[in-house]
């Protein structure tokens, strides 16, 4: 490929591990045939009546035809959540250790071209931050970096994981995609969960939005969860940034199907879905109000009915009332005491800028009390790490 020639977002770069295209191909085929506006009320009723939903049923629940049924769907979703998870809701917090980024995603605050304050925690600062978080009683942590293989290289991430293993029982990674042998390395150090958002499952839209950096390779990103499982991770999380694609329903559909297909291929994999939608941020050129709270709830409910055993996580970008509302119905994991700034848990740094603005600033105590107020059981520990190499 020549310099500055348009590239195919499906072509892997030389250092990227290739994955069997089976899952990607099926997602692409299913989303092509999914036509939300063709779904009828009868399709929605049929989906509501089923014990096990097909991708077509799932599509019906995401369609405009399902909107009048939202309350009914919510009742079933709540029932399924309680059946599979009881009233337990897990609490965790994210830690942003670096906000350097190699990518040029037009909607993101960390965009390489944005003139924000960049920062990266030193090993000592990572230790201080994590010790501070652990002192709140949380035992689950999600390590996030901007997607820079240069500034936060695998050795740096490995240092973060090894430090986290001293303080937490459950460690998740939300960093740039790795090859499976690199996931194996992180797993051996104590990480068990990987989250990567595909952002949008429409390759054409994807190419428009991801204008530079390794992230522009759609196929490599989409196969991240599969590589993570091949590397020994126990669970993988999926997300589509609702609002990036003109028809957000198709992205929600593709994302749901992605988890569904991978679970069928790797039956032991713990699947979970994150529920981000586009929110106002420092710089981008997209309508950030395309997806309403009602729309987002519809997506959360459809995931629950389609994959009743899957986890769901709600972003701190949503306001407390909404978060409490969905956690009462279908969300099984909620962050608390979040800071999206670098060093935000201990003020060890001059706090590099955050990726987005929070809407829920509640600390661990407040979230715990809110859960209890809803009759739910806050869970601080839900994991025994057994997979570490000595």
């Amino acid at each position, binding site marked *: 490929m020549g310099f500055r020639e348009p590239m195919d977002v499906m072509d892997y770069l030389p250092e990227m591990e290739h994955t069997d295209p089976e899952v990607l191909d099926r997602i692409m085929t299913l989303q092509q045939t999914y036509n939300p506006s063709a779904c009828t009320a009868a399709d929605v009723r049929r989906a509501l009546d089923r014990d096990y939903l097909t991708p077509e049923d799932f599509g019906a629940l995401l369609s405009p035809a399902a909107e009048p049924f939202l309350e009914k769907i919510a009742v079933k979703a709540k029932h399924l959540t*309680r*059946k*599979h*998870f*009881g*009233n*337990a809701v897990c609490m965790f917090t994210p830690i942003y250790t670096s906000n350097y980024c190699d990518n040029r995603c037009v909607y993101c605050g960390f965009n390489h071209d944005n003139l924000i304050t960049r920062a990266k925690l030193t090993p000592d600062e990572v230790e201080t931050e994590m010790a501070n978080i652990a002192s709140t*009683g949380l*035992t689950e942590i999600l390590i996030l970096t901007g997607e820079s293989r240069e500034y936060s290289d695998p050795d740096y991430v490995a240092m973060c994981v090894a430090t986290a293993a001293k303080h937490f029982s459950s460690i998740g990674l939300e960093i740039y995609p790795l090859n499976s042998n690199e996931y194996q390395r992180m797993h051996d150090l104590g990480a068990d969960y990987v989250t990567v958002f595909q952002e949008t499952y429409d390759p054409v839209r994807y190419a428009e939005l991801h204008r530079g950096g390794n992230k522009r390779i759609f196929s490599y990103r989409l196969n991240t969860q599969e590589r993570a499982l091949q590397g020994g991770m*126990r669970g993988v999380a999926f997300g589509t940034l609702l609002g990036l694609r003109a028809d957000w329903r198709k992205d929600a559909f593709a994302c749901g199907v992605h988890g569904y297909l991978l*679970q069928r291929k790797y*039956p*032991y*994999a*713990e*699947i979970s879905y994150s529920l981000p939608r586009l929110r106002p941020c420092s710089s981008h050129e997209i309508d950030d109000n395309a997806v309403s709270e009602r729309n987002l709830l519809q997506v959360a409910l459809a995931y629950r009915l389609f994959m009743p*055993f899957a986890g769901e996580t709600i972003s701190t970008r949503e306001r407390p009332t909404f978060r409490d509302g969905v956690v009462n119905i279908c969300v099984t994991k909620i962050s608390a005491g979040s800071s999206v700034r670098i060093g935000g848990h201990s003020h060890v740094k001059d706090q590099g800028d955050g990726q987005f603005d929070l809407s829920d600033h509640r600390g661990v105590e407040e979230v*715990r009390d809110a859960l*209890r107020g809803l*009759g*739910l*059981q*806050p*869970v*601080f*520990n*839900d*994991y*025994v790490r*057994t*997979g570490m190499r000595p």
Partner: protein
Amino acid sequence: MGNDDLVIGNRHFTSRFILGSGKFSLEMTKRVIEEGQVQIATLAVRRTNKNGRENVLDFMPAGITLLPNTSGARSAEEALRIAELARELGCGEMIKIEIVRDSRYLLPDNAETVKAVKLLADNGFQPLPYMMPDLTAAHDMAAAGAAAIMPLGSPIGSNRGLLTRDFIRMMVEGLDIPVIVDAGIGRPSQACEAMEIGCAAVMANTAIATASDVPSMARAFRLAIEAGRTAYLAGPGRILERCGEASSPLTGFLGE
């Protein structure tokens, strides 16, 4: 020690209602145990949080026998590591083996569970394996050192009752160790049925946790389990199935 104790290994219990603890609020634990007159409660080791917050162990009343489970284990080796952690926490030697390699239905993996029973028994534990009701696998588990067998009635959390009734019945007849129905029991009547066919105990969690009145449902389960046990001991009357009984004996022509 009474005449009809539940005996697991060398321990005796008068209650045959085993409570699962993972699905309701921790504050409720004590009341549920009281109302259900429960003596054994399971707990997920993964949910314990020693010296930490919302630790399930802190909510267990004194005198209760804890039956820690290996929830989260996907292999015999992982089950052993979790069991060792349970022992460090002071939960004793009885351990419920749960090995699941299917995140969708949470069905137990019998082959790996047989290995785990052996591994844990060799390490001094009294394993109670959660399993698919398969008599051959159950025999293997018993031979490997299981203290009791815990077949599922139907998929966990499904509240669908004894879908596997006939297979559990075979296990009751064919095994010399207690058979405890572990999952899927949704109503007291189903718990009663399990006891009527000779199960040694019933474990329930979701059915109680999802009730509108949790303590009352615990009490209802206790009564149903007692009723079923009493009926089993009384020897249920015959139920006429397809064939009626002739009023004069069919074999009367045989003379002496």
